[in-house]
C-alpha cells in the first residue's frame, strides 16, 4: 500500500491529473473502490480524497454521479434516468415480507443476533430468510456477541449500501427519529408510560406504569 506521506521519488501528479486518474479508475470498476485501493493504484504522493471531492462536484447533476458507498466510492447513473435503462434492469427476486423485515431489523439494529430479530418480529426466523439475505450479500456475519452462548451477529454489507444507494448505515431513512423515539432499544424508554398517562388521561391502564 502506498503511503502518501512517504517522501516521493518524483513529484506527485498535478491535481487535475489525479482527478483524471480517479475518474478512470472509478469508471472502470463496477464495484465501489476504496480510498486505500485508489492510493495503491495511483502514483506515490497522490491525494485521492481531494481528487474524489473535486470529481464529485464535477459530476453533480450529470447523467452519472460520483457516490460514496461506506468507505468506498463508485460511479452510478443518476436515479432519475432509470427509465432509459430497461435493457440493463436486473430482475430481482421479490423478497418475502419476512425477508424485508429481517433486513430492516438488521440494518437498524446492527449488530443484531437472530434472537433479537425474533424478539422484534415476534416469530421465529424461517430457514431460508437469512440464507437469502446472505446470498444477496446484503447481510453478513459480524462479531460474536460477548454474552452467554456468544451468539453470532449479523450486520449489513457494502453491497447493501450500494444497492440501496446509501452512503453509510447512518444514513438509513428515519434512523434518527427511530432512535429518538426509543424504538431501537430493547425496552420502552423509562418516561414512555407516564408520558402516555398525561396524553391520555382516560386511559388508566398506563398510569404509574413507568416502564423500568
Amino acid at each position: 500500500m502506498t503511503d502518501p506521506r512517504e517522501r516521493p521519488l518524483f513529484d506527485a501528479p498535478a491535481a487535475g491529473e489525479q482527478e483524471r486518474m480517479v475518474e478512470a479508475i472509478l469508471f472502470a470498476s463496477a464495484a465501489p473502490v476504496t480510498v486505500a485501493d485508489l492510493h495503491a493504484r495511483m502514483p506515490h504522493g497522490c491525494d485521492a480524497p481531494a481528487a474524489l471531492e473535486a470529481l464529485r462536484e464535477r459530476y453533480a447533476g450529470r447523467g452519472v454521479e460520483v457516490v460514496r458507498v461506506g468507505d468506498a466510492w463508485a460511479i452510478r447513473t443518476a436515479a432519475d434516468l432509470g427509465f432509459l435503462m430497461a435493457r440493463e434492469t436486473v430482475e430481482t427476486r421479490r423478497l418475502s415480507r419476512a425477508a424485508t423485515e429481517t433486513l430492516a431489523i438488521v440494518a437498524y439494529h446492527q449488530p443484531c443476533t437472530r434472537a433479537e430479530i425474533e424478539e422484534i418480529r415476534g416469530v421465529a426466523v424461517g430457514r431460508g430468510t437469512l440464507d437469502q439475505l446472505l446470498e444477496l450479500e446484503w447481510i453478513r456475519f459480524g462479531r460474536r456477541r460477548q454474552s452467554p452462548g456468544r451468539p453470532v451477529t449479523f450486520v449489513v454489507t457494502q453491497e447493501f449500501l450500494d444497492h440501496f444507494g446509501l452512503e453509510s448505515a447512518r444514513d438509513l431513512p428515519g434512523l434518527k427519529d427511530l432512535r429518538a423515539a426509543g424504538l431501537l432499544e430493547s425496552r420502552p424508554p423509562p418516561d414512555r408510560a407516564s408520558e402516555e398517562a398525561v396524553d391520555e388521561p382516560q386511559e388508566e391502564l398506563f398510569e404509574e406504569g413507568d416502564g423500568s
Partner: protein
Amino acid sequence: MAEMAGSDAGAPVGAVAEEALIVDVDGFEGPLDLLLTFARTQKVDLRQISVLALARQYLDFVERAKILRIELAADYLVMAAWLAFLKSRLLLPPDPGEEGPSGEDLAAHLAFQLERLEAMRDAAARLMGRDRKGRDFFVRGVPEQIERKRHVRYTAGLMELMQAYSRLRTRDEFRPYTMDRDRVMTMEEALERMRDLLGFAGSWTDLSSWMPDGWRRDAVMRRSATASHFAASLELVKAGRIEIRQDETFSPIEVRRRDD
C-alpha cells in the same frame, strides 16, 4: 387457556362470517403481527392503544378459532395465555405483596413491541422503495479488469468457505450410500477384542471403556463400536463368559468376567 372461556363468551358465532379477519392465520407473520393488525382497527396512535381492548380482541379471535375447530399454531396459543394473564393483571387490583412487573408495565411493553414492529415494517417499506441498484441506477456496463501484481488470482468467498466446512462436517448426511466398512466395527471384531480383554474385567467395568481409542471421537464410529461391543457382550453372556448389568434406563452398561 380454560379461564378465558367465560370472559367474552357472548361473541356470537354468526358474527364470525362478517368479521374481516376470518381465522386465516396463514396471512399473518405470527401473533405479534396479528395483534398489530387488531391494534390498527382501534384507529389510534399506537402509543394510545388500549392494551386491554387489544387483549380482548385477540382472545375473542382465539375463541372463535376454537369454535370453528381451527388448529392454531402453538405460538398463537402461548400469546393468548399471556394476554389472558395480562388481562387479569390489568383488571384486578394490584396485590401489594406481588413481585415482578406490574400489569401496566407489561401492557406498556406490549405497546412498545407493537410500535417497534410497525416501525421496522415501515422502515422495510421505505428501504425497498428507495432508488435501487439495477432498477433505478446502474453500474458500469463494461467494467475493466482491475487487478494487481499476481497473474493468477484465486478467489473464494466466505460462503464457499463456510459451505466447504459444512460439507466436511456433515458429509455423512448427504453422501450417496456406500457400504463403507472402515467406519463400521463388526460384532466379530468386537468379540475378538473383548475375548482378549476379558482377563482384565474382574470387577464391573463400564462397557464404553472397552471401546478402542480410535473409535470414540467420531460420532458415527462411536455408535458403531458401541453397538458391536454391546452385541458382542450379549454373545459372551450367552456363552457364559461374562455378566452384564444396567442400573437404570440410559445408565452405563457394565460387564464383569464370570469366574466359574
